[in-house]
């Protein structure tokens, strides 16, 4: 909304102000509707339909079959392990950055690089790894020459362990970005106060700093988890056999030319993903509530 003209009477300005905020929200609400509410509703309805469009629990109960359960487990393992590795290493790196003086070149370079790498995902990242560790990759040759590993490349790159490694590549910098503000909020005065009261370094970390940082740490880790859980393009470019994670199984259900009529099963799988994220988020909210109660 344009700012009110300086000549406008004060009464008009006041009236415009009361409409302003909701009008300003419009684009956001439109965005939410198109990209969140409509798709979620479509998924919800589709998951409970059979191929003819009638109500049915078939597709949802099919989630209990061996393959979808196996794939869900792999997806959770991948998301959790890459989030845990990313969170721990990212937090350590963030701490190193925070302890450097604000003007130091190292600090500025590392945070700038993290900003770039956190967004370096998708097909480009997959190809970067293939060029590094795949067949004829740069590192593959070095490793084969020095350590005597397989000169044909490491086939685990195209499987789940490879995905954990590749995901960590964008999880660590993302953790640095989202966790840095929390670490910066940790005031030196608190440490001085603790030391004045006779606390050791260990006591300061375990009884003051960790409890203060825990909500931010868990929140960041949740973000990393969701980030890995929903990531698609990197995995799609790397993995061509077996659809080992949920986003790839959804793709397969939609586009397979061998197993037909699985569209509604794709909806059921999406519903499962929504439920998983909802559970993780409620868990986080509950943890946060506990932590804040303890703090107050």
């Amino acid at each position, binding site marked *: 909304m344009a700012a009110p003209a300086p000549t406008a009477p004060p009464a008009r300005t006041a009236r415009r102000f009361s*409409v302003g905020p909701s009008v300003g929200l419009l684009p956001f609400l439109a965005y939410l*509707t198109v990209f969140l509410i409509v798709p979620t509703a479509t998924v919800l309805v589709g998951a409970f339909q059979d191929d003819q469009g009638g109500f049915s629990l078939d597709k949802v109960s099919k989630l209990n079959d061996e393959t979808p359960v196996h*794939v869900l487990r792999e997806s959770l393992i991948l998301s959790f392990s890459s989030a845990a590795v990313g969170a721990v290493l990212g937090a350590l790196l963030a701490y190193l950055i925070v302890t450097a003086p604000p003007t130091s070149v190292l600090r500025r370079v590392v945070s700038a690089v993290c900003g770039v790498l956190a967004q370096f995902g998708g097909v480009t990242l997959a190809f970067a790894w293939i060029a590094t560790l795949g067949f004829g990759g740069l590192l593959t040759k070095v490793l084969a020459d020095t350590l005597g590993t397989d000169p*044909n490349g490491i086939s685990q790159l195209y499987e789940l362990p490879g995905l954990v490694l590749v995901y960590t590549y964008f999880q660590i910098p993302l953790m640095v970005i989202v966790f840095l503000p929390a670490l910066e909020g940790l005031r030196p005065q608190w440490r001085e106060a603790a030391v004045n009261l006779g606390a050791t370094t260990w006591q300061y970390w375990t009884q003051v700093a960790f409890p203060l940082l825990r909500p931010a740490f868990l929140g960041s880790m949740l973000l990393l988890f969701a980030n890995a859980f929903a990531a698609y393009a990197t995995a799609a470019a790397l993995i061509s056999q077996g659809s080992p994670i949920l986003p790839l199984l959804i793709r397969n259900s939609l*586009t*397979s*030319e*061998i197993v037909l009529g699985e569209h509604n099963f794709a909806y059921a799988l999406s519903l499962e993903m929504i439920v998983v994220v909802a559970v993780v988020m409620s868990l986080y909210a509950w943890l946060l509530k506990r932590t804040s109660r303890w703090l107050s």
Partner: protein
Amino acid sequence: MKVRSTFVVLVALAASAALAGCAPPDDDKKSSTTSNGTDAAAATSVADFGTMDDLVKAAEDEGELNVIALPPDWANYGNIIKAFEDKYDITVNSDQPDVASQDEINAANQLKGTDRAPDVFDLGQSVALANTDLYAPYQVATFDEIPAEFKDPDGAWVNDYGGFMSVGYDSDVVPDVTSLDDLLGPDFKGKVALNGDPTAAGAAFSGVVMASVASGGSADDIAPGVDYFKRLKDAGNFLPVDPTSATIESGQTPVVIDWDYLNAAETAKLPSWKVFVPENAAIAGYYFQAINADAPHPAAARLWEEFLYSDEGQNLWLAGGARPVRADAMVEAGTIDQGLYDALPEVAGTPVIPTNEQTEAMAAYLADNWAKAIG
């Protein structure tokens, strides 16, 4: 008050979104009647247009043809499209050349009523037979020369070209392949790739059928094939990379299980690339050609079919290493390009063509077991 106005905004938004979602697409292209009053979308043969020249004129009036999922290096489609454009005054819009058959049907449904919808399909067997209500029946001029088992009696679909499952390999990198069991040996460590995931792509599916038949299975029993790939993986020989011309030329995938016409096309770029069809397991597969019933360019779609099934179109497929469906009739009539026909890979033994029921049963088994065997 404020809460309420926000709520009103939300409702209005939701309503407008719902309306936009429901509004039927503009349908002004529906009745494309030609100059002599023929409804091109209802034409079932060239006679409905009058003569071949009338069909050409109607198609050139439309001026465009939308094709989908036709990779330029697949069965010579790059040259086929070019030859069609050179011959007629029609622009071919080749959309998403690398997608799978099901994507063609998805695109037809999603773009239905727009002028971007695909006009013609080139489909794998299961997808083709599951969507027959989407096709417009049309009998090309050479319809009678196509064997009955390769067409729908009304011409809703017609097989177009086919081939046999094969093993392509770089003879500079690996020893000559004489049987599928060779691939389990130590010379093939980390070198054997399959063209796609067999639970998703037709070529990979037929590759597993081939492995099955070669290892004592049949078109009714694909389990030995899955077991073969499990052994291949346990030996460290299976390379889980999706092979393309690029991976073959760069040496990433020195052994590729794929249709013989796709493997044969690689030999032109990589002379040491050889093609082997196992003699005890000749798995044949034909693709299905059909016209979209809602084609935005119905006359051009029909002209495209006439072109594909003409001697010229069939020989163009042959030039891509594929076996055109009219091959036998053309050999008899002497219209086939004999040099190209003789250059096709040697195939011995009875060809196996899985029926639709067999394919469905095998697909169900694969959906449950492939990820376990290979994951």
